[in-house]
């Protein structure tokens, strides 16, 4: 599977690239689901010995064991497999706290994973020049309800129902890096009860 192609969009929508091995004293690779493929692809052209200085944090989500053994075969210095992004955050914060100048960060997978991990990295003072991203897998969106502020993960339809307040929200392209989420706004605010049938827009 090649990396995802997105329609041209508004300027707050993030743009993703293709991971490439860079010189560095240490490397941190964080991926979820099909994001593992981005790491595996990069590994094919990576200089020898890169993974002896690498920590991989991987959240398989629905891919189960598909990629775990292949990632392990890269022989990273440290390898973590976590059940969810949320479960991995305290570990990630600790890893970033210990980071030295020269750390290279690679983020791959869904927008929710990339956005949230990037927020942690930037908050820890990692310069954006040391960060690379590559989108792979599901285009489901992490959404913030502008009304109640609750986050709904892995949204695939538009409109969708807020997991917190229950309002029916339409999916905007407006994206906040700080929240690592797109904005959801009540779709029937001007005509309560008139909610269109949800359409699957993101897979």
């Amino acid at each position, binding site marked *: 599977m090649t990396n995802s192609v997105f329609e041209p969009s*508004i300027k707050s929508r993030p743009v993703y690239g293709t991971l490439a091995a860079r010189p560095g004293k240490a490397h941190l690779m964080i991926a979820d689901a099909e994001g593992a493929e981005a790491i595996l692809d990069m590994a094919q052209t990576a200089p020898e010995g890169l993974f002896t200085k690498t920590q991989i944090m991987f959240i398989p989500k629905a891919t189960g064991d598909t990629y775990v053994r292949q990632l392990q075969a890269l022989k990273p210095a440290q390898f973590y497999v976590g059940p969810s992004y949320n479960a991995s955050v305290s570990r990630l914060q600790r890893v970033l706290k210990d980071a030295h100048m020269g750390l290279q960060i690679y983020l791959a997978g869904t927008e929710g994973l990339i956005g949230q991990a990037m927020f942690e990295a930037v908050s820890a003072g990692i310069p954006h020049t040391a960060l690379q991203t590559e989108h792979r897998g599901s285009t489901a969106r992490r959404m913030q309800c502008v*009304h109640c*502020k609750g986050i709904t993960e892995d949204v695939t339809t538009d409109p969708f129902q807020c997991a917190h307040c229950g309002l029916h929200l339409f999916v905007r392209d407006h994206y906040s890096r700080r929240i690592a989420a797109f*904005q959801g706004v009540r779709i029937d605010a*001007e005509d309560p009860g008139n909610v269109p049938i949800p359409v699957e827009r993101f897979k």
Partner: protein
Amino acid sequence: MTIQFKDETFRDDYTFKNSEWAVNRFPFPFHEDSYMYSVNMEPHQSFRPGSVFEHRFDVDEHYLSEMRDRAQVLAEDPLRCQSLPHMTLAGWDLLELIMVSKSEDYPDLFQLNRDDNNWHWINKPMGIDQKFTFLDEATLPYGPMEYITRQTQGDFAVLDQRDDNLWMDAGMITTQADWSLDFDIGMNFFEWHAPVPKAHELGIFVRALKFLLNVQQGLPARRLNWTMTVNPLLDTSPENYSKWGVQKQELTLENMPDKMHLRVELQTFFRLPRSNALVFPIRCYLIKLGEVVTVPKWGRRLHRVLRDLPEELATYKGFIGNRPKIIEWLSRYDDGAPTSPGIWPD
């Protein structure tokens, strides 16, 4: 003149209205009979005594009621006022700019006495008498930005300048035309303007940013922006869209003169001295259509502008559904006569 402060509401029973004085000084935003985006910047110099352009921070008859509305919004949703940790110094810069400007421009209403860092601020209309130490947050009841903007009409976006861009890193936003500070905080100039249609393609934001990055201390700039609002709501936030969006349906030809409002933003831009941040006050002025048409030139012109506005803009500004009704009502005040150039009444 002495300002007669009104006791009025911008919610529930909506008792807001403009006096004849306020109508005649209203910043009507159209200098000709049509409208398209432009980088319509000009120096924010004192202009036309009595107009909203006379002073750096205009104070008018709605002052006390607007400040009461702001306090209500903040009590319901404290996230309308936020400041990222590196923006505190810019907050002090802003407090100084407003206190100095208001005490010089309205000495009968505001007084500032400074002895080194020992400051004494008196805001007579709001009954505030505050002694504090400049640059010492512990001596004020709120952070410096929040403290002074709870006493100053208009929203305030405080923009950090770095990497040849402007970053929305602090703000007091309670009277906004449908955008969320809580969502947009931390964004750069292009990101927070991302939802605006057409203007990116026209190169508006690239030129505007270039201009703003070069605003110098002591040489502020200004422009006008506008939209339409049903009911005199200062708080048309996305957070509360659920509450105000539905009110758009209540509009009829009969209630049009009282219910439909032209909403104008006087946007100004000041360089701040210590932080090198840029403060972007967005002052909202509301006027009922019934008040607009008391100035015949404005009635004719507003009809023509709204009638000919591209659909995309009417959609973005949120009045596409009500546009036919608005145009029908306004057409009664357009006899087809030519209008004079410029924004002022004849």
